[in-house]
């Protein structure tokens, strides 16, 4: 007898959302591939029953002929079942071998991510991961990935992840060609796009894709020395790599690593991670002016060249510049003949501050944590405050204008806009602190909510993306104790929590 109940349940799930037209339709949508996948599952169940029958026959009459039949049926079940239910982990493992075309076509064949229906995006993401593992990505390959992703009709979490990965591959290409600014721009885009995925409804992003996004963010944080961000991923969202890095961060902070993090470190056995564990546990302050100057030279040079410097070292650079460029400091770097010329000294401070403004505006630095403000750091703070708040104002004006005109664009542009605004908001928080953030909260909430409503209510609807907008606003509304906004966003999240 066929197990009818699970089959009926699968068909009901597959057709849910389209028949009711529910705005908050849970479950998955009835794309052609989802229906095909359900029929695949039904066929697999049928095949399983035939296998059981063949095993029954073999137990009654033990002949080689029967063994062969059982072996054939079991093989079909295993291969077919693996393709239907374990496509992501199998293809993810295959992608590590660096075969983009193979994983791309196998992903299509296995109807990857039938529940969200993003087969093109899923296949593109896997091909991108394969290229990321292989390295030496060519322009032609990046264009191929872009052309594949453009064919995707459903723009949910996997689409965002594939788009972010393409940006990350472009960043690496630009970096290899020494086009530092272009590389930084692409890397920033990749980072904010992956960050947006962490605000997605679980219905709109497969767990494996979310784990990949967390892995990318953690590795990027390690590259930028944003170590505290390593602990953001929850246990279920953290891959072995993220867990191993988190164990080091905990150890540095003087707290014991969780048992699963210790196991992850042992399992990974990465020499790079082990090198981290051999780092000093504490930073030694410079013993004299010469040592402090050597530190300043090293970190200032890295900053102006656009290289990563830890937030602590960035603040040290500012403090050291304040000191070494003060005319009354005994070991000042200012030539003796100009120390008395206030205007000239101020122009030097101005130029040094300007050289750091653009760097910090891109990467962010926790300036609000500076305890003592000097001539250079004050100028950097002022320049950054002006630049970031102006950037935010013009971005909000643009969004409000789009809402007024109900102006919609292609999914790439809209994904980027949502990610960019959230990234800018976080940059203000990171650089200027919670007080400055509180000042921009109201206009930001108004415009960002407008953007969410635009995405949710005008055609073509992108409700999963709108959900990420409302989720951020909900979190922030609770933080600023804005009850009205919190309630509104809760309602918006309920409306947009489906994948339609």
């Amino acid at each position: 007898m066929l197990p009818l109940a699970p089959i009926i349940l699968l068909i009901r799930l597959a057709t849910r959302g389209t028949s009711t037209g529910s705005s908050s339709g849970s479950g998955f949508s009835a794309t052609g591939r989802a229906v095909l996948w359900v029929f695949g599952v039904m066929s697999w169940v049928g095949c399983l029953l035939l296998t059981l029958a063949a095993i029954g026959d073999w137990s009654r009459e033990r002949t080689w002929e029967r063994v062969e039949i059982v072996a054939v049926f079991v093989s079909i079940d295993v291969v077919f079942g693996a393709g239907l239910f374990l496509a992501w982990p199998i293809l993810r493992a295959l992608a590590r071998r660096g075969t983009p075309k193979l994983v791309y076509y196998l992903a299509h064949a296995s109807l990857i991510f039938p529940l969200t229906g993003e087969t093109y995006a899923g296949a593109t993401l896997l091909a991108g991961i394969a290229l990321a593992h292989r390295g030496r990505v060519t322009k032609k390959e990046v264009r191929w990935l872009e052309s594949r992703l453009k064919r995707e009709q459903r723009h949910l979490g996997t689409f965002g992840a594939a788009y972010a990965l393409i940006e990350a591959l472009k960043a690496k290409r630009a970096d290899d060609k020494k086009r530092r600014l272009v590389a930084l721009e692409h890397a920033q885009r990749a980072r904010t796009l992956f960050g947006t995925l962490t605000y997605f409804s679980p219905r709109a992003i497969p767990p494996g894709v979310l784990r990949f996004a967390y892995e990318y963010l953690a590795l990027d944080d390690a590259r930028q020395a944003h170590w505290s961000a390593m602990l953001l991923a929850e246990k279920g969202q953290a891959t072995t790599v993220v867990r191993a890095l988190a164990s080091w961060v905990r150890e540095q902070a003087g707290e014991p690593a969780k048992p699963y993090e210790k196991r992850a470190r042992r399992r990974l056995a990465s020499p790079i991670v082990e090198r981290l564990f051999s780092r000093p546990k504490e930073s030694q302050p410079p013993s004299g002016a010469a040592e402090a100057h050597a530190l300043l030279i090293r970190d200032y040079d890295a900053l102006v060249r656009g290289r990563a410097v830890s937030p602590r070292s960035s603040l040290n650079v500012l403090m050291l510049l304040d000191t070494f460029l003060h005319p009354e400091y005994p070991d000042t770097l200012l030539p003796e003949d100009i120390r008395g010329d206030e205007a000239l000294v101020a122009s030097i401070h101005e130029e040094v501050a300007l050289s750091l403004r653009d760097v910090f505006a891109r990467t962010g630095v926790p300036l609000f944590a500076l305890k003592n403000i000097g001539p250079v750091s004050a100028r950097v703070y002022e320049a950054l405050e002006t630049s970031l708040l102006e950037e935010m104002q013009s971005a909000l004006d643009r969004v409000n204008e789009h809402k007024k005109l109900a102006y919609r664009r292609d999914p790439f542009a809209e994904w980027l806009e949502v990610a960019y605004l959230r990234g800018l908001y976080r940059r203000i928080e990171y650089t200027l602190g919670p007080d400055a953030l509180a000042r921009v909260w109201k206009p930001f909430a108004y415009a960002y909510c407008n953007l969410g409503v635009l995405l949710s209510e005008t055609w073509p609807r992108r409700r999963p993306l709108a959900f990420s907008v409302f989720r951020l606003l909900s979190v922030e509304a609770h933080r600023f104790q804005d009850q009205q906004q919190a309630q509104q966003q809760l309602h918006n999240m309920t409306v947009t929590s489906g994948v339609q």
Partner: protein
Amino acid sequence: MSPKNAFWVLGVSPDATPGEIEREGRKVLGLLEIGAESAKTYTCPFGELPRDATMVREAMAALRDPKRRAKERCLAKLGSGPRSEVEDMDAPLADAFLIGGYRGL
């Protein structure tokens, strides 16, 4: 510290005398005039950057003024000198993506 620091544009040491600066400037202008490839770029801590006759003239003019020369010298020296070799506990992990086996990120 700007990549267009006058000392770097002219390719002279921050401790060069006004006479040396003038000589080097004229030499670079002459090379640019005849289209010498070597004169079309200059090297600074930011890497190799393009250079033209206008940039060279501006740099020479800036360094003729003693006050601006002092300022440019101070800014040029800011990025030069012995660098610390101390390993920080929280330094960035440049090869972080290799932990996950991502050679292309």
